[in-house]
């Protein structure tokens, strides 16, 4: 069950992973993008941290919506509207259900709708889709998420900036898939699936 406390912990853990891996994420974005993914995510998570600091005892919907709005306004790249939409979908639906499998599934649908991409297009969806499938069978693990992110290496990009490279995008990890790996790892560490 997702609670406001878990989301708070989750965002702190995600922020610290993004800070640690900022240079690496931007490096991944260099050969197949514009080299800014780490900086974008760092700016976004700083914004999340600042906005969450201003809340006192927020309920689940408020905290999810605050994360969404901070990401939408601060990230600057494609990851902003995509992650932002994911959290917005969770905020919209969290009164009906707090089950991770259901909320992440709705979030994933939001990402697909926002960016028009699907599984196999070498985007963050290639981590989100297997993660949601694993949540549905109570089998989400760090190993599965890492394997999903690693799997983007062999794919040809069909969406986002990497798609302009076509076949030449093969052999590189998708930066958004790797930041999504950190997002799900942080969720597990925050006790999201206990």
């Amino acid at each position, binding site marked *: 069950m997702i609670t406001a406390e878990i989301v708070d912990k989750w965002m702190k853990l995600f922020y610290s992973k993004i800070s640690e891996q900022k240079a690496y994420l931007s490096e991944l974005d260099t050969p197949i993008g514009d080299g800014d993914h780490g900086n974008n995510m760092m700016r976004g998570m700083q914004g999340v941290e600042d906005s969450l600091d201003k809340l006192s005892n927020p309920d689940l919907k408020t905290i999810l919506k605050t994360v969404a709005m901070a990401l939408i306004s601060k*990230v600057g*790249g494609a990851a902003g*509207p995509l992650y*932002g939409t994911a959290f917005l979908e969770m905020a919209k639906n969290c009164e009906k259900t707090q089950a991770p499998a259901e909320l992440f599934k709705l979030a994933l649908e939001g990402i697909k709708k*926002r960016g028009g991409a699907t599984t196999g297009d070498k985007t963050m969806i290639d981590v989100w889709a297997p993660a949601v499938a694993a949540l549905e069978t109570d089998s989400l693990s760090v190993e599965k998420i890492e394997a999903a992110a690693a799997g983007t290496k062999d794919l040809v990009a069909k969406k986002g900036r990497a798609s302009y490279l076509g076949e030449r995008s093969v052999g590189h990890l998708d930066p958004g898939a790797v930041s999504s790996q950190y997002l799900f790892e942080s969720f597990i560490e925050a006790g999201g699936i206990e």
Partner: protein
Amino acid sequence: MTKKIGIVIVSHVPEVAMGIPKLLEQVAADVSITSAGGTDDNEIGTSAGKIMDAFERNKAQKLLAFYDLGSAKMNLELAVEMSDKKVNIYDVALVEGAYTAATLLEADVTLEDVEEQLAPLKIK
């Protein structure tokens, strides 16, 4: 008199977003044209907030929006969801598409006919 339909330009680069209206204004003095470029810190990227602002500043209630790359469209869609104005987003070549629309709107061509001329410019 200002036309009923306006144009909004969205680019990752502030200078591109400021430059395209100059090209259009030359042929469409009565069309309200506003733009949004770059992130909130004027870095390369797009901002849903800046796009909302471009919608608000536009004198028309119905807007035709043109954009450059990926995230520009996503932020445009987010802004459309938050705005009261009616906005159509076109997946056409940015400069040529916006120029086509500006020229035709200035000549009071119907939206249907504008869209017919935009159709072959679809590239995304």
